């Protein structure tokens, strides 16, 4: 069971990142729900989604205390940091978040996702970098399946597959 909140600016691929997790879990035969914040959202505004992954059917898809928080920008970290369960995980996009997480009861992983995405020759794929880090550290998803999922999602745009796989690998290597 993992209850994940993915949050950041609109345009950072926050909702897609949540979908990558949801698709991967579904392809592994798990129960999933993906609930976006919706509303007057726009590029540059805030966006988040709640993803539940479980072996048994998801009752409430609303997450008040996430096991995992993926914070892609500072306002998202500020908004959700105190809600993460004790013993949970926070993945911080340190490219945009310069502060350290002020909690010692959670596992914090800092990822310079924007720089690593550039390193993988896919500057738009900071979310894929983080996806790799999530798969490596959160223990809910299988790496091979996650790679296959990326292939399936980009099946209609195959030219984007290699650079997205590369971004994933860079994040997974952390």
């Amino acid at each position: 069971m993992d209850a994940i909140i993915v949050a950041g600016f609109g345009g950072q691929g926050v909702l897609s990142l949540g979908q990558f997790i949801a698709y991967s879990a579904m392809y592994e035969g798990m129960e999933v729900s993906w609930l976006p914040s919706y509303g007057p959202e726009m590029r540059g505004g805030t966006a988040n989604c709640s993803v539940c992954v479980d072996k048994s059917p998801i009752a409430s898809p609303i997450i008040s205390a996430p096991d995992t928080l993926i914070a892609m920008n500072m306002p998202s970290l500020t908004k959700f940091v105190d809600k993460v369960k004790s013993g949970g995980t926070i993945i911080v996009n340190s490219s945009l978040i310069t502060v350290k997480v002020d909690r010692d009861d959670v596992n914090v992983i800092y990822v310079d996702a924007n720089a690593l995405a550039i390193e993988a020759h896919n500057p738009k794929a900071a979310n894929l970098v983080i996806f790799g880090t999530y798969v490596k550290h959160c223990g809910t998803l299988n790496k091979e399946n996650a790679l296959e999922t990326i292939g399936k999602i980009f099946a209609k745009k195959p030219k984007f597959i290699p650079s997205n796989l590369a971004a994933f690998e860079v994040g997974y290597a952390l």
Partner: protein
Amino acid sequence: MEEKKLLKGNEAIAEAAIRGGCRAFFGYPITPQNEIPEYMSFRMPEVGGVFIQSESEVSAINMVYGAGGAGARAMTSSSSPGISLKQEGISYIAGAEIPCVIVNMVRSGPGLGGIQPAQCDYFQSVKGGGHGDYKMLVYGPNSVQECVDIMYTAFDKAFEYRMPIMILGDGMLGQIMEAVTLPPMKDFSNVPNAEWATDGTRYGADRRVVNSLYIQPDDLEAMNHKLFAKYDVLAEKECRYEEYLCDDADVIITAYGTVARIAKSAVDMLRASGVKAGLLRPITLFPFPCDRFARLAAMPNVKKFVSVELSMGQMVEDVRLSVNGMKPVEFYGRCGGNVMTSEDIAEYITKEGK
């Protein structure tokens, strides 16, 4: 069986409608249900159906009236303010006994309100939002899969009873993505058109009329009784609900749609802290599972009911009517587009005493 797909509630409803035989969609955009017309706009041409983005909600529902009158499996979808605009047409459709499906992905009101999830259209849906004595068969699905399953059979029910069917969701249900198994495409290509349909192609038989105008009081009274006889059959045959841990419960929580899932988690939390809570989830909102409520109310272990809704308290009135004074019925709700958490529900139950 098809591989599972990850779909939004809105997309899943649209695909399930097509697979259930829908070949005519008329609608006008409004958040949070825009994925339904969007999906229909490219999917309908693929299956040889009709998609029209009408100039208004009023025209959309009247296009459904016309297409349905000709025997087509026609539907429309909208959200609260748009559904209000459709009410006149819905009343005419009910009066003319035209089968159709209407989807309402409810947003908060009143007025233009907000675009976040709500359940404040319960009254409008089950009590008759338009004029006159009529009802619809109203479903309140709680998951994307249940949206699919209900939508897939909705047209069969609509034609069986010759009446409008409403699927009452909320913004969350429209926007959430879940894994679903889609049913196979139904084939109606060799099914003759309904004998009452005004398709203008058959001569010699009795004249077929689609109309809701009955000028003679006796005729109209008979018409009303005919409709209500149908509603009695619905109550007998179509009423659906789901129960969770009610047998030994002190407190019965009742909720429908996505809120019932939040409530189900609350029941688990309460059970873990020693409070014997249970959940009764109506799946059909009309017909309402009155008898089941009454039977639970008569059980000595049941101390009270709590209706949990995203409204100021609407379904709670039907719960009170069903419980009929046998046990206290309380209400807990959020509105305006705010959604309660499972913790909120559990806290309410704990604080208000058992």
